[in-house]
């Protein structure tokens, strides 16, 4: 992944006073999504032809991606384009607000694009139709092949302006692609845009791979590989494809995650039947043992400030969730409800921990405060686990498996997402069956 994909020239034409303009409240399930009209971006007639795609419909395509992103949040209701009355170029200059209000739109997105000197120049505006005011005007330049990311960046900026939260559309998902029968699954590391496009496979499927996790800058993935039948934590550079084993452990290492500053990998190391939590500094290669207990300690995840670690242990006899300081001191059990708890993951905002709960043979994805209070179970199913946070801490992605018959037929594994409000549960499209998702941070930050 290139460090700077975009020569991102964000220029604010105008800065309106935000006072009194529309806002979208995302703190509760939204039963009344905001009606928004996304006008196709006007394609400047001076635009050069590009061999890899059709230029003339590019504005239309970008607006469709923006609409799809908005729809996926459950917070917006993108209106049908056939009811639009104004031409894209005219609307972009100055919309006739009363025309758009007539179709019950409350917000309008307009824009235009020009391809010149092999560069794609885009500008867009967000309009508050009730107040008859412009809310954002931004422009940027990139290479034409990045046109899908243009749509995601536009979506992020508008989402941010309307909700007050950072967006999560210009992001990727790393996951494990699954094919073949249940007892002989072929698993590959895969990478796709948040909306399911641009899927890339990072391994060939020759060895079992599990649990990929992004580093904070999204250039590296740490994961578990059974290369040469030795299950070890690996590090993969996505752009170069270079892989290396993390550390020199005389046994299985697993359940890796990066520290929030990206300098360390924290993981479990299993020795003589006992799994403890270790960290390794990627620069100095210094290994530190963090837990020392004869029970299973696994699934560690740092708090965003790096001061604490939440993890999974069966030291009480059954799987529960614990929090400790990142040096391993002050270990405290935080789950006490009935059932088993696993896969704790600290929210990027720091306030919540997401988890998997198993109770009476059913699997739940839930969230709780980092002291274990305020548990809320968001979704229940036959089998689901491994939540991963959207970078703004509003949405969880996880995987769900279906029940199979006596021959293992009917089995599937798919990625799903749900808002932490418990609303807006939806399946993500993937080329193959999929599991172990990891949500990247925003690429264009």
């Amino acid at each position, binding site marked *: 992944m290139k460090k700077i994909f975009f020569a991102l020239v964000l220029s604010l034409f105008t800065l309106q006073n935000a006072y009194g303009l529309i806002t979208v409240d995302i703190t509760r399930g939204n039963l009344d999504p905001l009606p928004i009209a996304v006008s196709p971006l006007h394609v400047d007639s001076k635009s050069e032809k590009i061999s890899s795609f059709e230029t003339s419909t590019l504005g239309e395509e970008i607006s469709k991606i923006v609409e799809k992103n908005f729809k996926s949040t459950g917070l917006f209701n993108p209106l049908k384009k056939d009811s639009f009355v104004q031409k894209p170029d005219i609307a972009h200059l100055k919309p006739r607000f009363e025309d758009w209000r007539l179709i019950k739109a409350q917000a309008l997105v307009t824009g235009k694009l020009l391809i010149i000197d092999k560069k794609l120049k885009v500008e867009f505006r967000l309009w508050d139709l009730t107040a008859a005011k412009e809310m954002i005007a931004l422009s940027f330049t990139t290479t034409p092949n990045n046109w899908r990311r243009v749509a995601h960046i536009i979506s992020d900026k508008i989402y941010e302006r309307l909700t007050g939260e950072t967006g999560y559309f210009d992001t990727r998902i790393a996951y494990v692609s699954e094919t073949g029968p249940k007892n002989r699954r072929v698993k590959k590391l895969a990478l796709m845009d948040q909306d399911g496009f641009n899927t890339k496979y990072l391994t060939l499927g020759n060895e079992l791979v599990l649990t990929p996790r992004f580093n904070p800058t999204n250039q590296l993935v740490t994961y578990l590989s059974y290369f040469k039948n030795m299950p070890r934590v690996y590090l993969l550079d996505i752009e170069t494809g270079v892989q290396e084993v993390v550390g020199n452990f005389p046994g299985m290492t*697993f359940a890796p995650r990066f520290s929030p500053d990206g300098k360390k990998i924290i993981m479990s190391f299993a020795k003589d039947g006992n799994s403890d939590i270790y960290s390794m500094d990627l620069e100095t290669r210094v290994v530190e043992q963090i837990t020392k207990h004869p029970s*299973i300690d696994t699934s560690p995840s740092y708090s965003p400030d790096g001061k604490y670690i939440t993890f999974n242990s069966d030291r009480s006899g059954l*799987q529960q969730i614990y929090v400790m300081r990142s040096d391993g001191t002050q270990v405290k059990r935080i789950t006490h409800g009935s059932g088993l708890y*696993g896969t704790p993951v600290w929210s990027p905002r720091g306030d919540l921990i997401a988890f998997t709960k198993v109770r009476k043979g059913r699997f739940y994805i839930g969230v709780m405060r980092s002291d274990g209070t305020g548990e809320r179970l968001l979704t229940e199913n036959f089998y689901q686990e491994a939540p991963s946070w959207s970078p703004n801490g509003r949405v969880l992605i996880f995987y769900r498996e279906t029940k199979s018959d006596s021959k293992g037929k009917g089995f599937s594994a798919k990625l799903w997402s749900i808002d932490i409000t418990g609303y807006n549960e939806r399946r993500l499209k993937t080329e193959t069956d999929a599991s172990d998702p990891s949500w990247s941070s925003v690429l264009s930050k």
Partner: protein
Amino acid sequence: MKFNKAIKNLFIVLFSTLLISACSTAKKAQVDTVDDVYTGTDTVEFLAKGVPDRIFFATNKSKLTTASRDTLRKQATWMRKNKDVTVTVEGHADERGTREYNLALGERRANAAKDYLMTYGVSGKRISVISYGKERPVNPANSPLAWSQNRRSVTVKAN
């Protein structure tokens, strides 16, 4: 007439045999697990005559049952007799747990088997362990029976 009657009798005999065998399979499925541990022989393979290759566990547990210890002693005897044999003990979990915890659990089960083999005189150098967690079910069905068959450690000849 007589011939017909003979056929009729044959059918009755056949039918009742079917009934009996149906009863016995139903009964067998019931006794295939004791205290959540699989006790059947359906998935079991043999390292040598009379030496089963695998042992089974209760949900989330790695404790060896009486039957498991008996199996492992047979394996130990066999390994002591065949001094050049090395083995890998593969630890597995059922699919009803989180992936990462199951990896640890599989490792703990494989080591429980390894430790017992060592107690009965097999050098630890001849035994390596690997955990597959829930990744390699022997029975892909979604049923308590399948899950009990999948909660296992399997001793595999490595050379």
